[in-house]
C-alpha cells in the first residue's frame, strides 16, 4: 500500500481500525484498573459460574447492579447498561468485563460494538 492509497482511498478505514484498537486497549486497561481497585480475589474465573439469583445476592454491590441490569436487558452494550444504571460507560464496561472474566457473562463483538449477555443455554 503506497502513500497515495493511504491518504486518498483508505484513510477512513485506517482511522476506524485505529479507533477500534484503541477502544479494545481502553477496555483492557479499565479491567486492569478495576482488578487493582477491588483486589484480585473476587475477580477469579469460577469453575461453576452461573448467574442465578443466589449468585446475584452474594455479589458485591457494584457488580450486582450491573448483573441485574443485564439480566433484565438480556443482551446489551456497556453504553445501554450505563443509561439504566446512571453510571459512566467506562465503569460499566469495566464491570461487564469483570463479569466475563468471572464466567458469569459472555461477550460477543459485532462490528465495533461489544454485546454482553448471560448465556442461559450453556453456562460454564
Amino acid at each position, binding site marked *: 500500500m503506497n502513500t497515495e492509497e493511504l491518504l486518498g482511498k483508505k484513510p477512513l478505514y485506517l482511522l476506524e481500525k485505529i479507533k477500534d484498537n484503541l477502544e479494545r486497549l481502553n477496555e483492557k486497561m479499565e479491567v486492569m484498573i478495576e482488578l487493582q481497585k477491588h483486589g484480585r480475589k473476587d475477580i477469579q474465573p469460577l469453575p461453576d459460574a452461573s448467574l442465578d*439469583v443466589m449468585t446475584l445476592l452474594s455479589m458485591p*454491590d457494584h457488580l450486582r447492579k450491573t448483573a441485574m441490569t443485564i439480566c433484565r436487558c438480556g443482551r446489551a452494550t456497556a453504553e445501554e447498561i450505563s443509561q439504566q444504571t446512571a453510571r459512566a460507560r467506562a465503569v460499566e464496561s469495566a464491570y461487564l468485563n469483570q463479569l466475563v472474566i468471572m464466567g458469569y457473562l459472555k461477550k460477543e463483538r459485532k462490528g465495533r460494538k461489544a454485546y454482553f449477555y448471560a448465556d442461559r443455554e450453556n*453456562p460454564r
Partner: protein
Amino acid sequence: MGKILAVHSYKGGTGKTLLSVNLAAALAKRGKKVALFDLDFRAPSLFAILKINEASHWVNDYLNGACEINKVLIDLSSRLQENGKFFVGLANPSTEAMRDMSAKDRKWEMRALGNLLALRNTLLTEGGFDYLVFDTSPGLQYSSINAIVTADLVVVATTGDRSDVDGTRRMLSEMYNLFEKKTGLVLNKVLDSAKSKKDEMSRKVQTTYQVPLLGFVPCFCEILRAEGNFIFAQDKPDHPFTKILDEMAKKIETDDVK
C-alpha cells in the same frame, strides 16, 4: 406498559394466596387484563382455590422450556361480571412434580429466571396484559427470589406475630434492599382495625420495616369460615375485604405505593 407484581412473605400462612387471588381479581374487575401465576411449586394451591381440576400444561412446563406460555394460561374471564380479563397459570400439584421442582440445580434456576423475565415481552408487550401477579413460596426459595427479581412491585404479606415481624424485617433489609425492589407491605389479620388507628399503623410500619404500607386487612372470621371456597373480590362484591382489596388495586394502578 404493564406491571409485574410478586406477592411474597417471610413465613407461611400470612395470606399470600388469598391476597394474590383477590388482588388479581380486583385488578381484573377494574377492567384490566390480568394473569395470575402459581409459583409456589412446593405447595401449589391455586388449582384448588379456583376449582380447576384439569390443566393441559403447567407453569412447571413453561419454566422447563417444554411449552409456550400461551398453552399454560387458562381463561377465567367468564367468571367475572365485569369487563376485565382474568387468566391463570397453575403449578402442577402432583407429588412427582413437587419433587422434581425441589431437585432443580442452579443452572436450571438461571434458565427459569430467564423464562420468567421473558414474560415481560411475551405477555406485557406483545400479549397486551396489564398485570402479571406471581403467588410465591414463603422465605428464601429460588422460585420466589426469581419472581422478586422479575417483579416491578413486591407485595409483602405479614402479620403481627413476633417471629414474622423480625424475619420480615431482616428479609426486607438483607434481600429486597440488595435488589433495589419497590415494595408495598400488607399487614394482614389485624385485630384492632379502627379507622383512627390507620395513621398510627402506617407510621409504625414505616418505622419497623422502612417500606410503605400498601394496606392493612382486619381479621375477618368470614374468610376463615369460607374455607377457601369464595374469591371474595368476585363472589362477595360488597364485603369489606373486597373493598380493601379494591383500594389496594387502585393504589397499584395509580402507582401510589409510597
